[in-house]
């Protein structure tokens, strides 16, 4: 018998700091089965691991509970189940916190699943693993903080099979947050690579939320996005063969067109023939997009090959400090005065003995982000000096020397600012998939 059901799955966040209002709009008006919050950037887990060491109950996305407070009542009233990777370094702690929040809000009993097993810090310590984004091995990294494998969709589907209303994970591949609920809903075999490939296409289109519906797109005179301030987030109406129509809530702002879908389909894809995920190597070359209504794009095609036998691991490590200072110059000669200021700061840092192994001297408005070398002399320019330092004291000196340009530098410097930040960097490696054992723990709230 042909399964003619359509599963409706929405994207409620595309990054940790994403807006909450469009997610609530999706829950209230999107007639959803599932809502996904993608909230975990590459180094977020390392930062969260530090937070968990300071507070054993912490270490998950600090915005998780605010998102849940806003969305959970409407989601529970409509039977919308939520999947999120906001568990970061402590999915179990996050699950307990969500369950407690549901009680506090007076909601009916809630089943919250935590997906564990992505934390491979101990496994990584057993031997050196070659890094895939640079020379060397994991053993060369100083002060490793965290190591997390990108899990697949399987444990998310398992959690939903067990009746979870909310699933909280740590590191999983972003598309898996969407593929997991679809495996659960349709009873798909995770071994069907072609199906997993097509489902990955849908998950990938949705994972950055507003970037499918006109966010990161508008360009005056070229690409118009109506109602950008009220940008709605996308949802997919998915069929049992993993074909889908992507759309958004009627009346929401934004635009969902062939152009926005093409941009997002290729976003952060390297080889379109080989998009590596834990469950599949997806092939995007045969994806077809077709406009089937206002803000409605049909997505068909795509393919997949069997899963790789290794999983990608992000390793977070302490990488010293970065010190920065900025100051502005304006009027005729602004650029020349900013260049003089660079020379002065460079010489002063040498005199006071702050090593500048790695430094940038940017003229914002000229060459700070432009890489064509064609910037024209501007009426105003902001000097930015930024350097890596081994100690916090050396890093502080960078901004201090920029600030000192007020009374010790060229004519007319204004608006100086300075900052120091501790750097948590990320390196990547691969580990055999059988070294990773995902598991699900259910919390009743």
């Amino acid at each position, binding site marked *: 018998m042909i399964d003619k059901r359509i599963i409706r799955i929405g994207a409620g966040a595309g990054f940790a700091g994403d807006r909450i209002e469009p997610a609530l709009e999706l829950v209230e008006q999107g007639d959803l089965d599932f809502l996904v919050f993608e909230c975990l950037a590459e180094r977020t887990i390392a930062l969260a691991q530090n937070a968990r060491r300071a507070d054993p109950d912490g270490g998950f996305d600090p915005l998780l509970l605010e998102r849940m407070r806003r969305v959970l009542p409407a989601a529970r009233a409509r039977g919308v189940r939520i999947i999120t990777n906001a568990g970061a370094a402590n999915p179990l702690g996050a699950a307990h916190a969500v369950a407690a929040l549901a009680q506090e809000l007076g909601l009916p009993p809630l089943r919250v699943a935590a997906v564990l097993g992505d934390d491979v810090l101990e496994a990584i310590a057993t031997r050196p693993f070659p890094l895939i*984004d640079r020379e060397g091995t994991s053993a060369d990294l100083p002060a490793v903080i965290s190591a997390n494998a990108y899990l697949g969709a399987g444990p998310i589907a398992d959690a939903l099979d067990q009746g979870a209303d909310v699933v909280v994970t740590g590191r999983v591949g972003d598309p898996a947050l969407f593929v997991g609920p679809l495996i659960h809903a349709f009873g798909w075999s995770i071994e069907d690579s072609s199906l997993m490939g097509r489902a990955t296409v849908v998950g990938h289109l949705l994972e950055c939320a507003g970037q499918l519906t006109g966010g990161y797109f508008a360009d005056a005179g070229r*690409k118009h996005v109506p109602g950008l301030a009220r940008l709605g987030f996308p949802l997919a109406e998915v069929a049992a063969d993993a074909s889908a129509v992507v759309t958004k809530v009627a009346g929401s702002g934004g635009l969902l067109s062939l152009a926005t879908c093409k*941009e997002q389909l*290729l976003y*952060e894809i*390297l*080889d*379109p023939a080989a998009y590596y995920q834990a469950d599949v190597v997806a092939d995007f070359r045969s994806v077809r997009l077709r406009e089937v209504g206002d803000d409605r794009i049909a997505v068909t095609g795509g393919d997949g090959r069997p899963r790789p036998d290794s999983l990608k691991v992000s390793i977070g490590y302490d990488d010293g400090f970065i010190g920065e200072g900025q100051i502005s110059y304006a009027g005729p000669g602004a650029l020349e005065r900013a260049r003089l200021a660079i020379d002065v700061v460079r010489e002063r840092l040498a005199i006071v003995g702050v090593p500048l192994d790695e430094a940038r001297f940017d003229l914002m408005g000229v060459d700070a982000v432009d*890489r*064509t070398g064609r910037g024209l002399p501007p009426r105003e320019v902001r000097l930015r000096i930024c350097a890596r330092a081994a100690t916090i004291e050396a890093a502080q000196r960078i901004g201090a020397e920029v600030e000192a340009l007020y009374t010790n530098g060229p004519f007319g410097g204004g608006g100086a600012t300075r900052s120091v930040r501790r750097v948590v960097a990320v390196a990547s490696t691969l580990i055999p998939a059988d070294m990773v054992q995902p598991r699900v723990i259910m919390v009743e709230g």
Partner: protein
Amino acid sequence: MLLGDVAHLRTGDKGDISQISVIAYDPADFPLIAREVTVARVLRHLSGVAVRAATRHELPDLGALNFVLEGALNGGVTRSLALDAHGKALGAQLLDLPLDGDAES
């Protein structure tokens, strides 16, 4: 004619790799774009980017090219000292890449 007259772009990052898609507004313009927008001309236009290796993937069914610029992000977003550590502003600078053969110096 400039690239931005016939194509739109999106820029993403993965580690120390910048990825830039170039997508024809009208699929009929794809052959022109595929002919003119070579790896060499992209790198010449973005002369301030230090690239270790560059690859161009072609997606004729989508009318799109996908450029993968390895080593373009100063060690990657988590380490970079750059103001735009993700390199998000890179693709937009290709909007004024000329599409007139070898006229670009």
